[in-house]
């Protein structure tokens, strides 16, 4: 028994050590860039491998903005879908529809990227992009010209990719609502809408927040599909309809072509920043969940 305990302890410790080793490796490999650029690396907006000027801000901006817009699109859609699937349709229909939604999560990222290139990008140029410019063009975020590959296109791709996760977790959370609570409100003479907003969604809230955080983690780290549609331009455009770039995309695009040591090191430092962002998101998710559970 004692031996078994030691073996399992070894497993647990080695996993924790792996995470630490990963972090130290990232840290030491990015040291040349850290020493040369210091804090300006975080705030510089120019990324020019030829002149060896490296600033991370366009990529941090691209990562955060695409993920945030993806959430704005995906969260209402996912919650709506989950409510519909659990409250409004017969079990068999719900099962079939849920299966189709979950299939999206199984599509390889690169295949979604291909779809993005051949379907979404042309659709962004016309009609969606032109429509946004016509209706909302007075806001700088939606000013023309319309390119096709853009921050908005990337955000839409991300939204599609995180919808299955958020929908599925929200559905599970909704299904844990005690029947007795639901019936208590129904029997008082409440509409279905009141049951959903007053009992089901409040009860499912911690679960929904967990799902959203998982989706955000996925969006921030997603690489292939968004690389294929975002335009890969290291800039911070005023308009969401202009091309941009993300941390994950630029690493994937440039790593094999990086010839100078400082270029490689700068890319690894971008990886370090990405790592820190995802860790922060995870910690936030845990803190929020702990607070939610404590409220119960």
């Amino acid at each position: 028994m004692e031996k078994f305990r030691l073996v399992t302890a070894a497993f647990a410790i080695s996993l924790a050590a792996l995470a630490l080793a990963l972090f130290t490796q990232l840290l030491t490999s990015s040291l040349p860039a850290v020493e040369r650029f210091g804090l300006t690396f975080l705030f510089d907006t120019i990324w020019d491998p030829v002149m060896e000027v490296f600033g991370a801000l366009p990529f941090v901006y691209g990562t955060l903005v695409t993920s945030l817009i993806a959430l704005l699109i995906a969260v209402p859609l996912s919650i709506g879908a989950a409510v519909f699937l659990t409250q409004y349709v017969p079990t068999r229909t719900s099962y079939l529809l849920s299966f189709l939604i979950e299939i999206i999560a199984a599509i390889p990222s690169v295949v979604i990227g291909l779809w993005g290139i051949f379907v979404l990008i042309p659709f962004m140029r016309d009609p969606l992009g032109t429509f946004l410019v016509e209706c909302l063009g007075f806001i700088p975020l939606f000013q023309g010209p319309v390119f096709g590959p853009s921050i908005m296109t990337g955000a839409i791709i991300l939204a599609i990719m995180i919808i299955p996760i958020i929908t599925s977790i929200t559905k599970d959370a909704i299904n844990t609502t005690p029947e007795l609570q639901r019936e208590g409100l129904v029997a008082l003479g409440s509409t279905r809408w009141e049951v959903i907003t007053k009992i089901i969604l409040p009860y499912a809230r911690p679960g929904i927040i967990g799902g959203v955080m998982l989706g955000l983690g996925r969006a921030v780290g997603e690489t292939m599909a968004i690389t294929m549609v975002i335009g890969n331009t290291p800039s911070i455009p005023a308009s969401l309809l202009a091309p941009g770039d993300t941390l994950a995309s630029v690493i994937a695009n440039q790593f094999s072509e990086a010839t100078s040591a400082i270029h490689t090191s700068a890319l690894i430092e971008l990886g370090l920043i990405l790592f820190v962002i995802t860790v922060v998101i995870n910690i936030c998710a845990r803190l929020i969940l702990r607070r939610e559970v404590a409220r119960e």
Partner: protein
Amino acid sequence: MSSEIEIEDLNAWFGEKHVLKDVSMEMEKNRITAIIGPSGCGKTTLIRCINRMHETVPEARVEGRILLNELDVYQEDPVSIRSRIGMVFQRPNPFPTMSVSENAVAGLKLRGTRDRSVLAEKAKEVLMAVGLWDEVRNELNKPGTSLSGGQQQRLCIARALAVEPEVILMDEPCSALDPVSTMRIEDLIYRLRENYTIIIVTHNMQQAARISDRTAFLYMGELIEYGPTKRLFEKPENELTERYISGRFG
């Protein structure tokens, strides 16, 4: 105001399972009608058809007529029917996110009452009606779930009373409670009949005998016998009823 209920040829199903078969009966106003029978006989389904809760379960189906003061329940909006026919469940189910007083007037809030003084007054009125006011007057802002089981069930009865229903359905309201709490709730039910029509499902025959005016015996989805409680328990006309109340099966 209290109302009478008339059930005509009621049939109910869960999927393929036929759980109520051609049940016809009347429940008089200002009386307590008890429904007894062994587990699975359809007694809970019967009262859940009256406030149209049965149909909220997937695959459930109902046929037949139920009249509430000659108004066909199945021709009306279920939401408005449920506000005229209140329900108390097997286990107390106060809303955990609401305080004691919020729980008491939850139904009024649903109906759009926002005036705080009106709500507070109504909460006091119904909590007094169920004999809970003196016990909880200093705990009105605590969560409804912080009360004891018996208190929670009386809070749920108060919650049902607050929307001023005409009929109150009770589905084994004491089955999760200790004997003392059970006694208090039985006293309460007995007092409530002055103002409401009460239909109570129970598997406790002593309880039916103690508080009800009329008793219906259901077996395998069929209404076997229905009559004044005293007569039914002392001189059952049907052999099945006789065997059930004498404890030979169930």
